[in-house]
Structure formats: structure tokens, C-alpha cells
């Protein structure tokens, strides 16, 4: 085989290709790259050269827009999964030539029904790396820089190099983090510090796309209460009165696993672990005459699997990239600011402006008032916080004006503060005091103002 780096670092060899064929392919590729843009980009150029009736007054179109799109604009794609693969394809075809992509996952066989940049031989490899290589091989002239790791590995300096960020994530925590980071980065004196964030999400035949202009439009945290709360089962049901197969599976994973394996962490991707849970759940179900425990359900409950199909990802990713293109070129007004797509009962979209929440802990200025009775125990306060739709936290730690009130971790702090759980709010806080809440899911400290009610 010839040294491919000479031919093109982006050309992916096919195992069946001969050296001659690769060289031939490299030559046609170079010929294609050298073609004049007006011979290739006819269809994208149309909407940049011709001003539309809805385009912004300021739309200059033509070369300025093309220059920015193809030679200046640097886009970050977060997630190289179901949405990410589609987003990378669309951005590359639209003419974004400098793309970065972050993903911490490796490829699993269950990705192949929709993550179309991956093949069976890629299972186990980095999603970001394989996706980037595929795009560069397929779309000549595009540079995709992969990063196999977490978004939290990077700081503001890294994020400030991009003009646009497109997110195709399945994690709420990661979305909260990037959203808070981008809002924090805004310097009101410097428009360049405002990095539009375009976020997509899907579930089954439904999905949503939204445009967040940090500090200008509502942000991800503003709409946190729109999330459907995750299905949780009370521990007493799981332990004592199981009725559904899901209760038996939760019993196996939440109660039995730690009992049997002490400090060994449950690995949702290890089929042997799933097997153990399945057997345990099945025997419990049989004992209680509950039907419906299957391998598939066990896996679904334990991994919290969300059904996902190529077509829905295609719709949502296309919508995200359409907005990215409109923002980058001003060829048409961009989405202000939220579109829902529902395809399971005929089809419809709901497009609306989601409004900023004045008391949003990330982009709002106002403090959230926390109404509580004086005689409520701190233990109940912790519980009340986890029940709040607008907070979406699971294990909060609390501090007051005089320091820690209750900490879940580290162990010493937990031991030192747990006695407070039995105390009432009236004993440890005053009206108007600030209560600071931290949680693993929160990329910031949530500040609440105590208000006593009767």
C-alpha cells in the first residue's frame, strides 16, 4: 500500500482497494476539490446569492456569507451519536469546513440502526474519531477535529474559539453544563463572546430543536421544568409491594446488587451483569406471580433506554443545522426559539418562543424564593428540593450563611452535618437567609431565599 498521508490524510482506505485504486481515488478527489466553487456548490449558493423575501434587511449574501461559512466559521458539535452523525453530515454538506466534535462514547452494535457513519467493524472504537474520519473521507475539503472525552475536560478558552455550538446529546447533565458555561462566558461589552447554542433531542417519533442565544433568549436551564420527570419507584414499593416487572428489576439492581457485590459497581453494558439482574428479577417476579420480566425489559429499565430511530434523528439534526446555517449566513431568520416535532399520530410541529425565566439560576437575575414552614425538618427540605420540577436534582447538599448545613459527601462532612437533618428550618435559618444548594447534576450553585409561611 502506498503512503496514504502523501495522497490525502483524510482518505480512508477500503480493505478491498488496490494501491492503484487508492491513487486513482485520491486523484479524482483532488480534481473535485480543485473545481471552482460555483461548479459544485450550485444549490447552496442559490440561497446565498438570491435574497429571499424573508431574509434579514442586513443580509448581504453572496461572497461575504460564503467566505464566513466556508473559511471563517468554526463549529463545535457535541455528541457523535444518533443526532451527532446526522449533524456532522449536514454541516459538512452545507459548507461548514472547520468542525470539531466531542464524544466520550465508544461504538456499540445497538448504535448501528441509526448512527450511519459507523460499521460493524467499528464496534468498540471512539465515536468522535470514527465519525470525523468518515466525514472527511466522504466530503472532500472538510476538516473535522475529533476529541474523545468529556465536555468538562475543556475550559472557556477552548469554547471561545467557536462561533457556533450544535448539541446532539442524550444527557441532561451535559446540556446543563454546556449551557451554564456558555452563559457564563458572555461579556456584555463583547458580542463575540455570545456563542449561539443549538440543541436537539429525540425520543421515538418525537423530538425538539431549539436555538439558545446565551443571555438573550431563554436558556436550557429556563426550561428545565419542561422535562418529563424520570419514572422513579418508591423504595417501599420495590422492597415490599412489587406489582410491575419494573419493580422487580429495580429491586435487583438497586437493592440486591450492592448487597451481593459490595463495592463492585454495576456496569450496564456488561451482559453478565444484566444476566445476573435478569435472573434475580425473574425469580422475584415468579415468587410474586408477576409477569413480564424479560431480558430486554431488564436492560431497558437498568440503562434507562430511550427508543431511537434514524428518521427522527434526521429531522431534528436537519432542523438544528438549518438554524446553524441561517445564523451563520443570515440567509433567513433563525428559529425563535423552540420547535417540537411529533410524528407518532400523523405529524405536527409546534414552533414557539420559549420565554426567559426571571429566576433562572443561570441567566435570570432574580433569586428563587423558597417557601417553607418554620417547623419543617431539614430532612424534609432536602426531599422537597428533589421534588421540584424546576430544579431536577437528586442528592442536594445545603449551606446557609454560617456554613454547611447538610452535605451528602465527603464522608466526614456528611457525618458532621447529618444531625442537622432532624432540626427544623426555624432553628437553623432566618427569614431572608440565603440557602445555597449544590448537586452533582448542577453545574452551578443554586441560591434560594428563605421565606417562612404559616
Amino acid at each position, binding site marked *: 500500500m502506498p503512503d496514504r498521508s502523501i495522497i490525502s490524510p483524510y482518505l480512508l482506505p477500503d480493505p478491498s482497494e488496490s494501491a492503484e485504486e487508492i491513487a486513482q481515488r485520491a486523484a479524482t478527489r483532488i480534481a473535485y476539490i480543485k473545481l471552482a466553487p460555483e461548479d459544485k456548490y450550485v444549490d447552496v449558493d442559490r440561497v446565498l446569492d438570491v435574497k429571499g423575501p*424573508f431574509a434579514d434587511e442586513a443580509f448581504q449574501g453572496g461572497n461575504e456569507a460564503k467566505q464566513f461559512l466556508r473559511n471563517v466559521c468554526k463549529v463545535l458539535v457535541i455528541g457523535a451519536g444518533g443526532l451527532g452523525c446526522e449533524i456532522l453530515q449536514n454541516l459538512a454538506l452545507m459548507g461548514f469546513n472547520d468542525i470539531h466534535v466531542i464524544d466520550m462514547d465508544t461504538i456499540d452494535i445497538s448504535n448501528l440502526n441509526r448512527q450511519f457513519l459507523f460499521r460493524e467493524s467499528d464496534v468498540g472504537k471512539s465515536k468522535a474519531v470514527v465519525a470525523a474520519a468518515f466525514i472527511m473521507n466522504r466530503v472532500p475539503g472538510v476538516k473535522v477535529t475529533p476529541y474523545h472525552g468529556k465536555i468538562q475536560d475543556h475550559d472557556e478558552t477552548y469554547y471561545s474559539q467557536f462561533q457556533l455550538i450544535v448539541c446532539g446529546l442524550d444527557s441532561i447533565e451535559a446540556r446543563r453544563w454546556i449551557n451554564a458555561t456558555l452563559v457564563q462566558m458572555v461579556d456584555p461589552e463583547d458580542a463575540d463572546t455570545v456563542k449561539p447554542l443549538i440543541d436537539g433531542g429525540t425520543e421515538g417519533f418525537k423530538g425538539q430543536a431549539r436555538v439558545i442565544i446565551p443571555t438573550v433568549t431563554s436558556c436550557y436551564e429556563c426550561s428545565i421544568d419542561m422535562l418529563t420527570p424520570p419514572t422513579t419507584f418508591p423504595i417501599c414499593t420495590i422492597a415490599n409491594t412489587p406489582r410491575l416487572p419494573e419493580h422487580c428489576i429495580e429491586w435487583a439492581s438497586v437493592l440486591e446488587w450492592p448487597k451481593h*457485590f459490595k463495592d463492585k459497581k454495576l456496569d450496564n453494558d456488561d451482559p*453478565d451483569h444484566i444476566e*445476573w439482574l435478569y435472573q434475580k428479577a425473574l425469580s422475584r417476579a415468579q415468587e410474586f*406471580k408477576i409477569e413480564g420480566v424479560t431480558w430486554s425489559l431488564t436492560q431497558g429499565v437498568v440503562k434507562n433506554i430511550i427508543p431511537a430511530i434514524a*428518521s427522527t434523528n434526521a429531522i431534528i439534526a436537519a432542523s438544528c443545522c438549518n438554524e446553524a446555517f441561517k445564523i451563520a449566513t443570515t440567509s433567513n431568520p433563525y428559529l425563535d426559539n423552540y420547535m417540537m416535532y411529533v410524528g407518532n*399520530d400523523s405529524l405536527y410541529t409546534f414552533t414557539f418562543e420559549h420565554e426567559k425565566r426571571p429566576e433562572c439560576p443561570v441567566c435570570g437575575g432574580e433569586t428563587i424564593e423558597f417557601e417553607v414552614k418554620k417547623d419543617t425538618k431539614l430532612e424534609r427540605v432536602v426531599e422537597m428540593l428533589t421534588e421540584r420540577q424546576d430544579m431536577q436534582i437528586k442528592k442536594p447538599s445545603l449551606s446557609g450563611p454560617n456554613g454547611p448545613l447538610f452535605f451528602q459527601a465527603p464522608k466526614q462532612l456528611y457525618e458532621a452535618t447529618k444531625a442537622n437533618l432532624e432540626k427544623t428550618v426555624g432553628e437553623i435559618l432566618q427569614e431572608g437567609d440565603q440557602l445555597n444548594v449544590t448537586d452533582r447534576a448542577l453545574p452551578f450553585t443554586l441560591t434560594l431565599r428563605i421565606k417562612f409561611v404559616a
Partner: protein
Amino acid sequence: MESVTVTEATTGIEPIPSYRPDEKTRRYDRQLRLWASAGQKSLEQARILLIGADATGCQALKNLVLPGISHFTVISDATVRPRDIATNFFLVPDSMGLSTAEETTRHLKELNPSVEGCSRQADPLQLLKDEPDFFLSFTMILSVNSPPELDLALSDLIWSASENESMTPDISLITVRNSGFVGKMRVQYRQHCIVDTHPDSTHTLRLDRPFQELKDFALGLDINDMDSMEHSHIPYVILLVRALERFKAAGNAEVTYDNMDAFKGTLLTERRALDEENFEEAESQAFRVASKTEIPENIKALFASSQCENVSSSSRNFWLLVHALKQYTSLPQSENLLPISASLPDMKASTTDYVHLQNLYKNKANGDLRAFKECVKTTLSSVGLDEDAIDDEEVVNFVKNCHSLHCIDGRSLRQEYETDVRKELIANELSNGMHMNYYLGFEACERFYTQNKRWPISEDDTTSIMEIIVPPLLSEVAGASDNELAESAVKEIIRGGFGCLPTTSAFIGGVVAQEAIKLITAQYVPLDNTCIIDLVKSTLEKFRL
């Protein structure tokens, strides 16, 4: 308990047990959770024909190859140009000058090794004249950005092929047109019958008229002897049945929304403590006692249709089963209701009570199923078919979903153009946002194409469309209304030059594939029948035309 390793605790050394998913199930896991093995089976039998191998067509096909259709064929007589490579992800520089059909097929096949892909380098319009039967060998045809006359000819061919119920299966046709940021898509099928529509809820608790076994169990409970744990775990279904009995005994004929407060009062007389969550649940579910269980309107409409009345040996299974269902509802044991559903929602309850209650519903449902099966046999014999001509699995699935059956009578493209149905719709909708304007804008451009053998792309073309084509079109389709067609719609369409903007193609490709999957699996409710996609404003609207 001593800590053990996972491998020791599991069946690591034994061969992988059969209930573990095989490779195919793992590959399709995320979609099987939506349409299950029945839907997958239909997909794996589907043969799709793509006419128009442009970016939009290939994106649509990609989303169908990935979930695993059986076969696709791409027809095109075009050869690959640089601008095609720039917009179509399934073409590469190497494809230049080669057959578009062959090159796109080659790259689409890579997406899923279990899908068969063929290409045919031919002019589809000519092929339609020479070999119409070729088109009838597919489950579904996607015609993407084809000349208007081809769409109409395809529509006519398929429509007439399924004229009689007994003739070849109803082939669906999806036609698409897009330009720049806007697009339209239309779905044609003669009739689409859905058993599994995936409704939000499948429970039929019948709390307004509890069946005998449920009543016996509820009233037979000695709740005074229960300890507080047992008492606070009586399922709300039982509490409501008991309350209804007491309420009636007190002289009330039935529970209505008007006497709901009094009924809740009756319910709460059995409550021992304020914190009994099962009573809280019962209160919040009390409305169910006031909602009358009856045959849903959509099912009554099916019963009234002539296809249900006049079943024959060539009727589709769906209609034979609907006919049997209607027979069933006239049996005394049915109490003029549909078979009950075996499913029970989760509720505060002890395991024993819940499982017992679940079994009551299940047994009742099984009894209903047996009676229904008799009706199926009678129906089948009455039309001269074998008693077991319909698969048991299909009968069971039908009964399970019999509360949310759905049937759509489609319309052909010719019907759209040649009947008056759309007149009123157009007149009403033209002044109501951009979508109808885009619809008519596309039609104006199609007329331009038919007259000039090319798509409009310039300002002059816009002017000639607005001045020459639009006025007669408007008077023809919008009748006497003084509506105007927004020039901005025509401008935005023509701005796109009837080319594929990759994001628009990907969006429409996704929508087309979703609808195709719903049609092929006969699950979920598909579009009926036209959808306008506006990616200027990121909205879409649907019309029945």
C-alpha cells in the same frame, strides 16, 4: 453475605442462553422498543422503489435501509455531476460521470448488510409505459422531485391497480418536491387500516359498570378486619367499585360530573386516616366512574361502513375482524361493549391484591377473547373461508387493540386535482399563514414546468408565473374568493432554484421515512395526505387534499 465476582455468580461458562438477544436483535434494539417484532417483520418484507436519486431521495432511503427493509431499487437515467456530489452524501468524487442510480445504490447498501439494493439506469417515465408491472412489484414507491406528469402517471397506475379489494395489495406512493428552504410531501394510499395505533392508554377499567367477578371480589372484601397496612393498600379500583355500590344503594342512579362531590363523599366514608394514599388515588380517579363505557365513536364508524357490512372472501382481514367485532357486540355476554382490555395501570396496592385484580381483568379478557374468536369463525365460514383462515396471533392482537382501531380512506393525486374538495380548503387557508401559499406556489411552478420543460429559476420566471399562471390557477382552485397568492411564497420557492439544500433534504428525508415506516408497519397513524414544510420559519402544516 460474602462478596462474589460477577463471573462466578453468572452463567459465564455455560453457552449464552437463548433468551439473550441475538446480534440482529441487538442491532435493532432501539427501534424494536417502538414497533416490536411484528413491525420489524413487516419492514423486513418491504420492497421500496426510489425514483429520483437526489439528496432528498437518498436521505429518505437511508432512513429506511438503516432499520432494515428487505429491498430497494433506485431508478434514474442521470449521470453524476459535481453539484450532485456536493449535496448528496451518497455520492463521492469517484462517482463523477457515472450512473447516479448505481453510485447511490452502492453507497446506500453499505449502511446495512442485510438489505438488498438494486439500481436501474432508465428513464422512469419511459419505463412506466414499457413495463408498468415492474412498478407494481414494490410495497411502496418514493417519487422525489420528479416531473409532475410522472407523479400523476404513477398515481394513476397504482390507484387503478388496487381498485378492487381483491387486487394486488395497496401500494403506497409518496411524492416529494423541494426547493431551497421549502418542500411538500404527499402520501397516497387507497385505504390504510391500523390495528396498533399506539394510543397513550390501553386500559378499559369499566368502573361505571363493573363486571360481575370484579364486583363480587370488591364487595366480598372484609375491610373492617384489615390492619392499617392492608387498609391503606386496597387498590383504588376496588375502593371505587365499593363506593359506587353504596352510592347506588343510597338511591343514586349513577355517578355524573354533577354529583361527583357527593360520590367522593361516599368514597371517603371508608377512609380511616387522612394519609391513606390509596384513597387519594381513588379520589383523583373518581372521574372514571362518571365516564360512560361505550363503544368509541371511531369504532362505531367502522361498524357502519359498507366494508364491514358486506364482507366477502376477498375482504381484508381487518374488515373481516371488524365484522366479527360488530357481531360480538350484539352477543348478550358483551353487554354491547367491546372486549375488555387485560391491562391494568399501576396503583397503590399490595402485591397479592394487585395480582388478583390483574387476574380478574385477564380472565374476563380471555373470556371475551374466546367469544370473539367464535364470532371470527362464524364470519369466516359465512363468507366461505376456513374457520382458521386468520392467524390466531393476528386475532389476539386485534382484540388487544380493538378500542383504538383506525382506518383512513386515502385520495389519489388525480382526485386532488380534479375534484372540488380542495377548493374550500384553499380558499380558507390562503390567508392563514404561508403553508397554503407554498402549496399553490409549488403548483404554479409545476404548471410552469409543464409549459416550459424547465423549472423556474429567475426573476423573470417569477414575474411570468405571477402574471400568467397564477390568475387562472387561482380562479380555478380558490373559486370566487378574493384571495391572492402571496408573491413571497413563489419568490422563496424560486430562490431555491429547485435544487436540494442539504438540510432541507435531510429534514424531508426524515419525515418521508417516518411516514413510510408507519405505513409499512401499519402501526401509528400516518399523514393524510399532504404536508408543507417551511424551513424558513421551521414549521409545517398538513392538509387533506
